[in-house]
């Protein structure tokens, strides 16, 4: 089991950041690598158990199931059902915490998964920097002051 952890500080109140990221179908609106997204079977994007079907700009398709959504804790977790990455038992969590000192947001995003040993380093780097940090950077430019 590999754990990847990425965290950042977004220069905006947690409510504002959460409003942007809580939409499980909203990745195209704030990440740089998603072309389009839909929720399968026409379910609401905040119904626990719904599946988002995401097409990446590089053409890959990822299907992810919503496991947790907490408007109280600003937290969302999901698992991967299908992806081109070669990972198994992948569960990720995105969590926001208010930084009262300066009224900004501490954002954490972590994932645990299994993969072939020779792919560990590339996947950890690709997910930690290529996905999570890239998304944070994009988020900073959208909602950051």
């Amino acid at each position, binding site marked *: 089991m590999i754990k990847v952890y990425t965290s950042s*500080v977004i220069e905006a109140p947690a409510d504002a950041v959460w409003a942007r990221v809580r939409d499980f179908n909203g990745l195209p609106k704030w990440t740089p690598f998603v072309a389009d997204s839909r929720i399968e079977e026409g379910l609401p994007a905040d119904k626990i158990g719904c599946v988002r079907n995401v097409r990446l700009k590089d053409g890959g398709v990822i299907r992810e199931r919503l496991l947790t959504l907490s408007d109280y804790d600003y937290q969302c977790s999901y698992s991967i059902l299908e992806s081109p990455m070669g990972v198994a038992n992948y569960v990720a969590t995105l969590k926001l915490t*208010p930084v009262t*000192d300066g009224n900004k947001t501490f954002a954490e995003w972590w994932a645990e998964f299994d993969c072939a040993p020779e792919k560990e380093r590339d996947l950890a780097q690709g997910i930690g920097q290529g996905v999570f940090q890239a998304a944070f950077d994009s988020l900073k430019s959208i909602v950051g002051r």
Partner: protein
Amino acid sequence: MIRVTRSAVIAAPVGRVWEILRDFNSHAAWHPAVGASRIENGEPADQVGCVRNFSLKDGNHIREQLLALSDRDYTSTYCILDATLPMRNYVATVQLKPVTDGNRTFWHWQSTFDVPQGREREFTELVGEGVYKGGFDGLRSYLQRDRPHVSGSSAQAVAGQGIVVTAFGGPEVLRFQPLEAEEPNAGEVLIRQTAIGVNYIDVYIRKGLYPMIEPPAGLGMEAAGVVIASKCAHIMAGDRVAYASAAPGAYATMRTIAGDQLVVLPHYIDDETAAAVLLKGMTAEYLLHRTHRVRPGDTVLVHAAAGGVGLFLCQWARALGARVLGTVSTDEKARLAATNGCEYPLVTRSYSFAQEVKTHTGGRGADVIYDGLGSAAAAENLAALALRGHWVSYGQASGAHETFPDLGAKSGTLSRPVLFHYTAERAALLEIAGRVFAALRDGILKADIRHRYPLLAAADAHRDLEARRTTGPLLLLP
């Protein structure tokens, strides 16, 4: 029930911030609202269950108990036991998390408690702003205080100069020459050294008596300086640091060393004091508090009472309430020992002191003997020891013990402690060094630095030390 939550981002790595916050008694150093603080019963400040007893600068007084501490999760939970403030059921948790984006720290501080009806707003403000927000700002300025400006902090090998032992022998084997400090690897830091301590062990190593180097090699166990580059989680470039290391090589302008060996200096300890005191002060600390716990009324015998460690042992043992007897070689050293806490300095050049010790203790002998003399004084030490006394052999100036002493004659205990075994764990190193710094601050230990030499004149320092022309610490200045 009131819940107060405050959080902040600190511009320092999480390892660095945690090293400060995990010490339950550190708040006196960084929190602007906290006055004097101590851990009750002399317990370690990272022992779950320990109680910190402190005053606030507004005059209030609080006792708090550590309920949980996790180096894995960077969390600390504590409660108020009693306070002059009307707060009840107060439980607080400090949690740190790494901000991987920029190598900073997220600090979350939360508590729940009860106060008398109608005073909720007042106490929410007091705790949230006065204690937590004030603490964030206090720690930020603590991390910046007295921070020298460091420019060009590239983590590459740098050219410097230093002393090399060219062969085992007299002071003439010490040569000043260019010496490159290596590029720091993971966990290491590069230091620009500002003051270097000279210890008698350096002479033994130079002569080849201790098999710790193979010439040509560096020399010196202790120094202070400024971190130029860091690849260590809990040390930052710009930190003022000191070390007492088990690996020789301190006689140099620049040095690369494992960050785990470094102690960050509090603002009230200057570089020269740190370099002069750290090794000898930590030795005195563990000998008096760990190898043997000296109690008020104990009779303590300190050999070489006017030496570097000896003076600290006398000062500190006296402050602990012990009766201090000491041996010295000259009348002048007897006067020096006497002004540093030694009640009965015994002048002897022939290792003959047991009779006098007996005389001064009503025939009882010493409860604990701090012995750096070695084999030549073994019989006298056994004779000077009280029944069930503790003989602590921490040095062997006259040679190693050849036979095991007949401790059965006194039901005595013999210890053969070595400093680096007491400081091997980083938490212990920080605790011992912290107590030495506090003892200096509080005037329990006094460092009278009279001898300073340029680094290139290290051989002169060794000549003076060996000729017994010096008293107190010797420093080399790069």
